[in-house]
């Protein structure tokens, strides 16, 4: 049956009367569904990127915050760095400079912040190596060497964020599945309406010896092509809309835009074939079901 689904109108297509409103509605709905599908895809992929980003980049780093009187600050910082240098599992430890702190705080407090006048804690960025370090042991040693130091391994706020991103990704895929299911339901209804409207034509064809496949094919071709065509229009519109979305901006590396990145731009290409396949299966099922009811 698939092999004979060539494009272009064939003689056999003419057995189905010219298109009515249901077929045009199929076209429009397929376009709308494809548009939504592209957005659901973008959402899933963006959520996936965020989850990966946060899980990977943040999992291997920790921050040590040192709150000490101004006079003790540099001594405690030195002590912490010395402890870290001796701790197995720490790949790198780096004190964040005043300038870097300034840059980090700038988006929040503006450029005119007199940083040196404020009791800003010193920050040390710790990068783990693969086996990781013993967080509890390090905590105890730091308590002895530099009482003002507090380890923050980010897990407190990282975990819920990664979880939220993962949920969002699942929601995206669920939305995609729902869109596909709705498309199938819509095509089944439209095909059922078209088959019912053409019952007399189908009876006549059966009387003159038409096999089920011949009758079904004429309807399947029509709906598959309409759904595919509608989905192409919708997917192109959706992709253009995604391309016009703002990118991640200055927070790149930490946040991500809804836009696809790199080879992900190819994803919308699967939307029209998926719509066509869905239409093919839905119409075939509707036609089989209808034909079984008549001899």
């Amino acid at each position, binding site marked *: 049956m698939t092999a004979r689904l060539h494009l272009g109108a064939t*003689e*056999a297509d*003419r*057995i189905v*009367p*010219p298109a009515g409103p249901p077929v045009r509605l199929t076209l429009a709905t397929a376009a709308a569904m494809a548009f939504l599908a592209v957005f659901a895809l973008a959402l899933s992929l963006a959520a996936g990127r965020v989850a990966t980003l946060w899980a990977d980049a943040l999992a291997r780093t920790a921050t040590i915050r040192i709150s000490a009187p101004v006079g003790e600050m540099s001594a405690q910082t030195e002590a912490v760095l010395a402890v870290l240098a001796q701790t197995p599992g720490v790949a790198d430890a780096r004190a964040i400079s005043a300038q870097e702190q300034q840059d980090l705080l700038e988006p929040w407090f503006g450029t005119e912040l007199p940083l040196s006048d404020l009791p800003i804690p010193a920050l040390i960025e710790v990068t783990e190596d693969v086996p990781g370090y013993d967080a509890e042991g390090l905590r105890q040693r730091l308590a002895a060497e530099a009482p003002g130091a507090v380890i923050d391994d980010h897990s407190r706020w990282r975990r819920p964020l990664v979880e939220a991103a993962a949920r969002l990704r699942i929601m995206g895929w669920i939305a995609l599945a729902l869109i596909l299911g709705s498309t199938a339901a819509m095509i089944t209804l439209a095909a059922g309406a078209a088959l019912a409207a053409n019952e*007399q*034509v189908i*009876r*006549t*064809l*059966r*009387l*003159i*010896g*038409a*096999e*089920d*496949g*011949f009758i079904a094919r004429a309807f399947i071709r029509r709906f598959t092509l309409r759904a595919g065509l509608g989905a192409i229009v919708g997917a192109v519109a959706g992709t253009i809309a995604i391309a016009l979305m703002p990118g991640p901006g200055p927070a790149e590396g930490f946040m991500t835009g809804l836009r696809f990145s790199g080879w992900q731009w190819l994803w919308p290409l699967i939307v029209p074939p998926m719509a066509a396949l869905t239409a093919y299966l839905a119409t075939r099922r509707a036609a089989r079901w209808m*034909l079984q009811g008549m*001899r």
Partner: protein
Amino acid sequence: MSVALIVAFIARFCELYCLVIHNIINKPRACFQAPHLPQDCNCSACEARRSHLSRIGERSLIELSEVSYGYGAKPLFSGANLSLGPGTFHFLTGPSGAGKTTFLRLCYADLLPMQGSVSLFGDVSAGMSRDSIARARQRIGVVHQDCQFLDHLSLRENIGLPLLVAGRDPRLSERNLSELLAWVGLENREAAFPPELSGGERQRAALARAVIMDPDAILADEPTGNVDWDMSIRLLTLLTELHAMGKAILMATHDLALIRAAKSRSNARVLRLTGGALQLAGSDL
């Protein structure tokens, strides 16, 4: 040696003599007018028909055996037997509501019998797949009282539709189509759409559509129901011409005048469906 020769000669002569006598006696009744091939006849005509039958491999195209059918608890008819062989012509008559249409629908597997069996070209209809029923219908032309066409296609396309349905290209049969349109007298109406046709034109178009596939059997259900007498005779003439070409014809009608008109020009048998039984009517019509 010579005695043996003489005996052989006499035996051969007798055999030939018997065959000639047999043919002279039986020819009008048993051989040429018989709807079914006589089993016991050895005449040349019967031999020719027999060899034709063995060549096409089917003794009967459509065969009903002890068939009953009904729409309620009480059967409409029961115990019906019929064998439609190649080249036979049957009328099916009976009062309205006796089940003539039902009977015909059983013959093209539009209905399945409640009891008994119907076989189409040797296959029992109850056991046939939907597609094998479709293929059997390509060999049976059906004409209804109110024929349905595909209203969005021209008359010519409608008549060529069975070819398309059977997977053939109607464009390869253009001449066939033209000849067929001329035969039913619709050559000037080929571009018309079915809703524009008169009752008589529709019936002739339906007949043309029924024979485009060169079927073995033609089933007509009251084809003259909606047309005047002249058109009835015209349709009948077309059917008798098809019969002369070797098609099996089964025509349901309640028009006894038409049956009488037909009897004068072909060797039709009359089946009567009445009182829940199918009977072969005598020659008293």
